[in-house]
């Protein structure tokens, strides 16, 4: 088995990795970084459970080799809170209990974090676009949208 060595930066920490060249980022996060908040859902880039941020943009991690992300800043769901302070989306999800089983929630929060980092007050269309491909089976969509609207309301109130 041919293995290669490279360095990945995840949630602000760099780590030396030895893996096969094709090993997708998802498995490196879960196996080598022990960050299991990013989920394996389909392995086909269809369900969004494996979403992470790479340099602030959403990337589905279940197929793309980790080696593609050398010299990039990778942020997983575990790295979204700063100094143990939840971001406004996580906080709002708590206030609206915006999860049922929670398997899809990491990917949804990651998607919304990208959106709200890029746009202060996103339009409804942009919210739906951001969540396109983020599948949920328990039907938490309505509570997720309530939590999103709450973030918008708070941002509007704070000018």
């Amino acid at each position, binding site marked *: *088995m041919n293995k290669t060595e490279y360095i990945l930066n995840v949630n602000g920490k760099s780590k030396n990795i030895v893996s*096969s060249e*094709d*090993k*997708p980022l998802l*498995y490196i996060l*879960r*196996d080598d970084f*022990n*960050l*299991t*908040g*990013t*989920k*394996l*859902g*389909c*392995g*086909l880039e*269809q*369900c969004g*459970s494996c979403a992470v941020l790479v340099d602030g943009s959403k990337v589905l991690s279940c197929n793309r080799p980790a080696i593609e992300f050398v010299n990039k800043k990778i942020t*997983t*769901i*575990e790295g*979204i*809170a700063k100094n143990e302070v*939840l971001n406004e989306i*996580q906080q709002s*999800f*708590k*206030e609206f*209990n*915006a*999860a*049922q*089983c*929670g*398997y*899809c*929630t*990491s990917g949804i*929060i990651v998607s919304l974090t990208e959106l709200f980092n890029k746009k202060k007050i996103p339009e409804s269309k942009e*919210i*739906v676009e951001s*969540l*396109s*491909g*983020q*599948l*949920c*089976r*328990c*039907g*938490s*969509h*309505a*509570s*997720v*949208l309530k939590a999103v609207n709450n973030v918008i309301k708070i941002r509007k109130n704070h000018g």
Partner: protein
Amino acid sequence: MVNKYKLNTGASVKDYNKVSDWLSFESPDKINISTGKVDIGQHISTTLALICSRELEIDINSIFVKKLNTDITPNEGITASSLSVPNSGTAIKAASIIFKRNFLDYAAKSLNLIKNNIKLDDGVVKDPNSNASISFWDFSQTEDFFKLSIPEIIEDINQNNIDHNFHVETKFINSIVQGEYRFLHDLKFDNMLHARIIRPQSYSHRFVSIDESIYKYLKDHNLELFIKNSFVAILGDDEYEVIKSLNRVKNSIKWEQVDKLANDEVFNLIDKNNKDTLVVKRGGEAFHENIPEIKSYKNSNYKTLTSEFNKPYLMHGSIGPSASCSIYKNGKFVIYSHSQAIYALKSILSNAFNVEEENITLHFMPGAGCYGHNGADDVTYEAALLSKEFENKYILLKWTREDENCWEPYGSASKNKLTATLDENNKIIYWSSEAYSDTYLTRPMVGKLEYFVSQRFINNDFKKYKAEPRTGAHMGIHRNLDPIYNFKETRLVKNLVHDLPLRTSALRTLGAFANTTATETFMDDLCIEVNIDPFEFRINHLDDNRAIDLLNDLKTQMKKDKLSENGFRGIAFSRYKNSASYCAVGVELTVSDNVEVELKQAWISVDAGEVAFKEGIEAQVEGGFIQAASWSLYEKVDFDNNEILSKDWDGYKIIEFDNIPLIKTSVINRVGFPYLGVGEAVAGPTGASISNALKRALGERIKSMPFSQENITKQLLG
């Protein structure tokens, strides 16, 4: 004056009648709840903690709910059929009431106080004079505590009016939003092998041979192959290497097809195939009796209408694939499973592997939500089997997306045929309703090893099992076939259709989704025929005041909101199993020029008895609405003669955020009434209300789900 009521402590207390079966007290301030129900995202842990918290006047954060572990938690059977709060919730409430009453007696006696003057503060009673105190935790150390029994009926309970409009954070949300909530899939042990199953094209393929050259590849990649007849698994310590090898190993195997998967379209097979046909009587039980002919009336003032409704095979479609972890060591199994039937699995695995039940421990660990019998039980059996072969190693087996989509037991395809006669006063005097479907009940069962899908491959002599019709009230196919309405005469018929192509079992609501959709869409056809308001028409056929209140509540809700441009509305209603929650749904939708259905607004009114956790009820009904809307608009398992075609999310579309309406939910609180299960009540009314709004939009009833562009166009063009 505070009103009093009595509590029937219910089914779970019959088996576990000691307070200590349900509650344990851990110093300094922790209370543990035991439950035999599993939290699959329905917030049962929060609901139980909240019930206990209110009765014991203790902060919910001091109350912890133990995950099911067959060595220590009560066996409450399967977590299904909307019975978690009615069973476990009632037991916890009863245990908490009995505990508190006895604690107060004990505290009064120990501190020499008058019971009625005692002030309970965070589980502690203090003597204001001496400052001496007695706590719940002190009492829990006494012999008296372990003797406390829960009676069948508890009298004189104060009817407290609780404000449910404050936010209660669910038990796991804090860890979920930070990615710290552990699912079964996240388990890690030293000495663990990851596993995947290599499956053929269909149920009817058998292993013939393997290209021997594959063994070199396996050796080079530290992988092991396990073959038992046609059951093939691959194992290794690196999960990705296992996944990567799947196609390569699959392609090295020669399979033979011993039978076709299907030889006709499923709705034709439902008509053609052999059936067990039973009469269902008012009350919902089924009987092996002669089937009466459909009645016809000669009165020219009467109107007779007919209807038909088809539902395709639906999948559970859990976002995370089914998974299980098992180790067999020193003659004992330790197994982690996200099944809803953990206790049943224990007995079955004991029989299957000839290991005493006392040597099997099953732990529940969360999987991704599904609501029903998906692959969770199959994968647990498979993981146990592999761990028996690879002793002393943890085996973490996960299904692939294709496994999940193609090998789970689906919700059966079904057909409903109805006839009704209205008299000259626009009252329904005759109602005939027939349900046709495969079984919904192949959950794990002792003596039915064949219900596990892998038995078809492990056992070369496997013969397809023949389902037996169940006769209990509202079982499977005939769930909610008996309408709640006061029709003068009914003819209800259940048909268990044999030899249908796909494997089936329990999917959220079983037959109730189809039966309620069929009933409530036909009710709408009838009210349109006689030009009566749909609320009024239903109320004209109801005697149950709670049902009438519910419909009026929905009507009030819907009146407050303006109709959207080009919007059409539909309503529907049912009481799940005619014994659980009442639920009424209103939907507003538009249909675009290219026949795409957009959901604009939805209103839900629900009566689940006494409210334990309002936000939990809202989450259940709104989540159930969204899942049922997805079934109604998008979902259908596709297959051909040889294989299932809906192998991934491209081949099996489900609802997304682009078609979620604004949902408003009204929860009617019936203080002092029994808790009614709420997880499934909304599905049937959702399917029917969407169909009813569509009929108003299109002027025609669309008879087959899903109400997709393809199906609507097909029917409209004839």
